[in-house]
């Protein structure tokens, strides 16, 4: 098992948001976590990535059999956990390629593998940029600065491609995207999907799942998983709305 979340209670500012969440993800699988606003989707993403403002009250998160919660966010990243942000942060003054090379080399250093110099890395980056159809012009620009919503999300997937995580959590990657941008981002994710990694898609809408077809759908409400099923569950949700699940759990 790649990721095992057991009876997780967590929150922010003293408020419990996740109220006993369980989840199991195997390598090679794509899981969708769907839920209405306020159900705890974002909290789950942030707790898994290690956001310092969120606190875990009780429960366990095992990643490759080890306690993930013991690791700092940067250690988690170097161990292969990646989160694509709903609102990617702008980093003025630092170019995309500088940033990505630093991140890539940190990971290589950690794994005891060879680091790449700027020229070698540039070739590697160009190759990866094809996955999200990104113009190399973006390499020189400051990270996310002045990027449109769609460009920011593509940049997130480019980072995923460069870092090659074992577990990628895509937090509302579809939000704010028009249909063309959504298609490019989804195609990028599909190209990166493999038997060697797992992807968790966190989303409010079923729309994204037309493009990235999940193996499993989990419905989150009130801070825990209230319904699970195959990809057809997403269609059922789309049709009946979240009230259907909320009503069913009361």
């Amino acid at each position, binding site marked *: 098992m790649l990721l095992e979340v057991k009876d997780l209670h967590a929150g922010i500012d003293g408020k419990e948001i996740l109220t006993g969440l369980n989840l199991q993800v195997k390598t090679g699988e794509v899981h969708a976590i769907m839920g209405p606003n306020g159900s705890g989707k974002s909290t789950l993403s942030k707790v898994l990535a290690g956001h310092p403002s969120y606190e875990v009250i009780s429960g366990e998160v095992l990643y490759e059999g080890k306690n993930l919660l013991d690791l*700092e966010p940067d250690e988690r990243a170097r161990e292969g956990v990646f989160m694509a942000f709903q609102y990617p942060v702008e*980093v003025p*003054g630092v170019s995309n390629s500088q940033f990505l090379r630093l991140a890539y080399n940190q990971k290589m250093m950690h794994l005891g593998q060879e680091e790449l110099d700027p020229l070698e890395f540039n070739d590697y980056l160009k190759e990866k940029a094809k996955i999200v159809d990104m113009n190399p012009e973006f390499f020189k620009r400051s990270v996310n600065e002045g990027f449109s919503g769609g460009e920011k999300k593509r940049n997130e997937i480019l980072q995923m491609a460069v870092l090659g995580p074992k577990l990628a959590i895509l937090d509302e990657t579809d939000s704010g995207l028009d249909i063309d941008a959504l298609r490019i981002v989804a195609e990028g994710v599909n190209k990166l999907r493999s038997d060697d990694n797992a992807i968790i898609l966190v989303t409010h809408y079923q729309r994204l799942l037309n493009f990235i077809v999940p193996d499993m759908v989990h419905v989150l409400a009130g801070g825990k998983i209230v319904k699970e099923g195959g990809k057809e569950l997403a269609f059922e949700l789309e049709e009946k709305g979240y009230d259907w699940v909320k009503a069913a759990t009361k």
Partner: protein
Amino acid sequence: MNWSPTLLSRLTVHSSHFTVRFMAAVMETIYADAFKRFAASLDEPEALSRLRADAFDVFTRMGFPAVKTEDWKYTNVAPFAGGDWKIPDSPEKSAADIDLDLLDIFDGGRNGFTALNVAFGEFATLRIAKDTIVDEPISFNFTADEGSAHFPHLLIIAEAGSKATIVESYASASKSFTNTAIQIVVEDNAQLTHYRVQKESEEVFHYGVTEVSVGRDAVYNATNINLGAALSRHDIELKFTATGGEAWVDGLYMLNGSQHSDTHSIIDHTVPNCTSHQNYKGVLNDKSRAVFNGKVLVRENAHGTDAKQSNKNLLLSNEARVDTKPQLEIFNDDVKCAHGATVGQLEEEELFYLSTRGLPENLARNLLTYGFAEEIINKIGIESIKSDLDESVLNRLNVNLSV
């Protein structure tokens, strides 16, 4: 003997007052003797010698600025200014090409430093001929020997329709006193880019002033980088003299240890339809201290003025301190003005973002700090200077981007 506490404290006040007066007298004697020797060696137009003598009189009257003066309340120059500096016996430059008309309008009476600068001035004039485009940057590099004072004074005239870039840099390697001035005239339709790089050793005492006048439809674009010196002060005074002028007066100060940096600027919109931009950033570590005082004046008839001013500071240590005071004084209604100042620390969300990409916290912090400073350094259009500054900044932050 029985001293009452009141008497004792009164006596103490008296004696320290006496010490200050006494030191000032000694200091003035040092400069007075030096000026006597200096004046005796002069072989230059009478008018110039007279300017020097008058300026020295002003200095004798004013002395060095004291912290009780509003403009100097955060910057105490006493420990440095009164130092026993070696003062040149004669001016270095030949006097032949000095633009006396321009020198004559220099505000030497601004303070004791500017007065002293004129008295001992090592003047040099650069004229960029009408309608000439100079592609190569024109560089002025100044360094002082250990223990000595130097008094560079540049007179730059960008004649109508000309275009050029000047680089003014200071890099003394050991304890010394820089007292420098630059006067710049950007005539009608001329474009002047000005990089000022202060990378003195951290024992240097640096005072500098920049006086600029911007003519009709002229463009002046300045970037002032302050990385060095134990104590540095930069006074900037820019005046629009005809309509349609545009100016950038940007800068960065980046301080460590117990460095102190003070920037005072006045941007004076005296005429209609001019645009000014000022973006100053500061990065302060350890126990360093910075002062930013930026005044934008929009005079009564200066309608159509567009003025922006910003001063953002990043404090990397709890012991660092910045005093910032952006000021707008507007005497006309038909203007667009914006100003603001911030003092803050690195954003938690930015740090978290970088850490989720595998960067250790320290590297993430330093990279964000570098990015903060880069906004100013990136303006520099000369690759050799830019990469040199990049390296200085990265070295300070211990970041290696070429890994």
